[in-house]
């Protein structure tokens, strides 16, 4: 019986011209999105590799100079493009593409690609993720809103139930029928998605499990929508009411909710202004913080400490360059301050994300989006990880310069010139993103909520079907 119902639903849907048109349009959009994403990834990966090599070459090609001058010259770190960003570029257009690593300062990431675009471009980017998160639920609405309601309106539901078809069988049949019709779109979509990320030079061992998890996430998301829309259809008096209800739900939860929740998150956990942020850092550096002395006092104390340690009376008697030691101490204090404020800022963003994820209880797209970005390596957590790695590299580089100065610049300090061979002693910047485990932990809440939505959708459907009225 079940197979008959599934076959009937499936055939009926595929015969509907509107469904065919919608499916073809959706696949075309998806293919366009993937082609576009693939071209972007190709271009960005090449561009970044060239830039990273160029900045490294610039660093190595420095003439003999004072190590501190070299530290000031610094090096750039360019944000990598993840292979899976082909599917979902997430926040990438909204974070800077590069940061300058130099002495004394932790610079912010500069040049957000979206800044070089117009307001029209804020209306949305064409990515596979957007297509799947926004448009597939709409296709589900188109497929499923009439499932019970139309039969009820036509009077065939009464006939079916009178024939002795069990409501549960009917519900399952409708669900599998719609799912099968959906599969006509989603199976080619998955093939296209895989084809889009193959041959981009990505690390398959890294990307494949993530892509697999993505498929799981999207299936949960679609299952939730399918269950909810079918439940609406089972309860609605007419097809018109079912459709209006399902469309209304789609609009409220996928169009309105993300923006509403963003305002909520900003109101509950305000983002500091850049001016306040830099002022707080400057104040901590100059006036001290948390029992740490201000700059002048701290450096004086450091001088006394060094003199005591080496058991000498003046810095000129030190066996090392005091300027080098002083620079390193300055870095150490600066790093404490930068760590403190950046951690606070990242935590603020994380708190805003928690508001967003919690809101996924009413708008599942928020959980799906977070999970999709996380698995694609284009969420805030991945950006943070890269920013921290770049900062770590900055510290390694500056410390190496200071150490050389301390060792070799006794008596000459800033007039000392290091040999060109020094630049090569600092290895190239190498970065590995967070592991799948870390990403899943980060988005465990989103995954749990998606799972709950999927289960909830099925429960809603079974509940509605159990009380099915002709």
């Amino acid at each position: 019986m079940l197979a008959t119902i599934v076959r009937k639903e499936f055939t009926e849907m595929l015969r509907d011209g509107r469904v065919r048109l919608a499916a073809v349009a959706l696949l075309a959009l998806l293919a366009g999105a993937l082609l576009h994403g693939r071209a972007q990834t190709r271009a960005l990966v090449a561009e970044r590799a060239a830039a990273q090599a160029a900045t490294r070459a610039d660093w190595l090609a420095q003439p003999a100079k004072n190590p501190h001058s070299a530290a000031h010259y610094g090096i750039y770190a360019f944000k990598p493009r993840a292979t899976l960003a082909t599917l979902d570029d997430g926040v990438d257009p909204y974070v800077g593409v590069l940061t300058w690593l130099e002495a004394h300062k932790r610079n912010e990431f500069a040049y957000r690609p979206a800044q070089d675009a117009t307001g029209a471009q804020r209306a949305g980017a064409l990515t596979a993720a957007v297509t799947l998160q926004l448009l597939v639920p709409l296709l589900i609405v188109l497929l499923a809103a009439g499932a019970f309601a139309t039969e009820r309106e036509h009077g065939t539901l009464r006939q079916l139930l009178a024939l002795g078809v069990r409501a549960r069988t009917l519900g399952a049949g409708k669900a599998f029928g719609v799912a099968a019709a959906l599969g006509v779109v989603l199976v080619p979509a998955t093939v296209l998605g895989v084809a889009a990320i193959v041959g981009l030079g990505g690390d398959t061992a890294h990307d494949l499990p993530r892509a697999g998890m993505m498929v799981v996430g999207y299936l949960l998301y679609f299952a939730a929508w399918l269950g909810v829309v079918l439940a609406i259809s089972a309860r609605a008096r007419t097809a018109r009411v079912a459709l209006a209800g399902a469309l209304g739900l789609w609009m409220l939860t996928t169009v309105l909710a993300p923006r509403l929740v963003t305002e909520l998150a900003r109101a509950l956990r305000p983002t500091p202004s850049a001016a306040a942020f830099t002022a707080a850092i400057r104040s901590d550096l100059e006036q001290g913080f948390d029992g740490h002395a201000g700059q002048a006092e701290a450096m004086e104390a450091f001088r006394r400490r060094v003199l005591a340690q080496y058991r000498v009376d003046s810095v000129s008697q030190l066996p090392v360059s005091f300027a080098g030691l002083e620079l390193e101490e300055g870095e150490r204090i600066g790093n404490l301050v930068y760590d403190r404020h950046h951690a606070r800022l990242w935590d603020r963003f994380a708190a805003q994300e928690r508001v967003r994820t919690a809101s996924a209880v009413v708008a599942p797209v928020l959980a799906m989006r977070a999970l999709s970005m996380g698995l694609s390596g284009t969420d805030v957590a991945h950006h943070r990880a890269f920013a921290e790695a770049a900062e770590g590299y900055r510290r390694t580089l500056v410390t190496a310069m200071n150490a050389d100065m301390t060792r070799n610049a006794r008596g000459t300090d800033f007039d000392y010139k290091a040999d060109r061979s020094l630049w090569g002693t600092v290895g190239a910047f190498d970065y590995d993103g967070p592991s799948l485990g870390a990403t899943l932990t980060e988005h465990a809440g989103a995954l749990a909520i998606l799972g709950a939505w999927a289960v909830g959708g099925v429960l809603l459907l079974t509940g509605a079907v159990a009380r099915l009225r002709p």
Partner: protein
Amino acid sequence: MTTLATPQVATRVPQPRTVPLATLLAHEWRLLVRDRLLHVAASCFIVVVVLALAAGVRWSRAQQATVDRLRRADADQLVAWQRALDTIPADAPPPEAFARDPRSAFHVGARVGRVAGLDQPPLGVLAVGQSDLQPSYYKVTTGPRQAMLMNDEIENPVALLTGRLDLTFVIVALLPLLIGALSYGMLAGEREDGTLALVASQPVTLRRVLLAKVAVRAAIVLAVAIGLVAIGLVVAGAPLAAPGVATVAATWLLTVLVYAAFWFAIALLVAVLVRGAAAGALTLATVWLLSVIVVPVLVNVVAQARHPAPSRTALIAESRAAAAAANARADTLLRKFLFDHPEMRAGASVASGKDFVTRSLTVQFEVDTAMAPSLAAFDARLRAQQALVDRARLASPSLLAQGVLESLAGTDGDRWRRFRDSTIAYHRRWRDAIMAQAVRGEPLTAAMLGALPTFAFGEAPADAVLPRVGGALAVLVVLAVLAWSGALVAIGRVRAA
């Protein structure tokens, strides 16, 4: 009503006077008011409008407060320096190169600098627009121009990605949904409920009935969309009395009116052409989806493919090379600089050019000069892409309306680009003034501090934006007129059965 029971008779008697419009409207009003959908949709919309207005006010005020705070700190700093300078005796030893001393041109000009701030536009509460991506203040020092422009406002990138709940979003994306929700069942609903035949039997044309239906819905929608926003603007304290602002605000509301008229025409067309309320709802949703989401997204892809934004990464490599070249020639740069700037030669001290400060200033100067053509070429390419996107807005009434509404609110990026350009000009003046001080090598005095260039943004008159949006608004009007003509022609074909 007796004619209803005996239609054969009705055909013979002279046509009764047609139902007065007032009766039709009152009837439609009573029907709508009893409809639960209206209550739900309208109250949701009202709540969202109020929330969006509140969000706009919050955003606008916070932005202004930050700029005000920075300006105050700047002014306080200047006063503190001038006080300090007054107390330093004239024969005091000159400050060390890196000293935090107001007499040091390096400290004042390169380390501390000044703030260039952008005030919120008078109608900024209507649209966040691009203002969350474009900083409303810059720290101006003698440092390279590119470094100055790198400083961004902090924002959670997810918030930037999602976009803000401002009034422009509510109008562009949600208003058509409200119109659709109220109108999708206008005709088909009555047909499916069996009441359409009853209505058609009345001495009134279906055309009149439909127009009355639209009129009542339009009154409700516009009362909310226009009335509430107008009241909101007054409550939020928008400076409507300032010259030109009221005109711009009125144009904003006019744009909303035209955009709403377009969507009502679409709703009417769908009501007439598509049989079945469910199919009508689906058709309206599809048109909305195309206009609000799909076409804008496609426009972006085409713009990116046809005019890819130039690479910032490549630009960095170039400026890096310029810096290296300038550094290599640092010793000869000052001589070249003084040769190019004879007005600064007079007081140039013999020592200058050897010390680190003048040296680094001349290097920065050289980098800016060397990079200027590349930066100009870069901006030109960006403008080409933006011009393409602006033309492509024609493909979607929603993109068109969004552009007009954001331009009128002053947050579309055009005003910001003028601000950035004045900041760049100010940066040049500031750098030159500090350079002149540094090469002279004499300590700054209170009078010299007071004479340093100050930033002023040449704000255009509020209504200067009107000619700029005129074309787009006219296109929107044409679209609305076309849609209405189509709808009015189509209405003639409606059958009750």
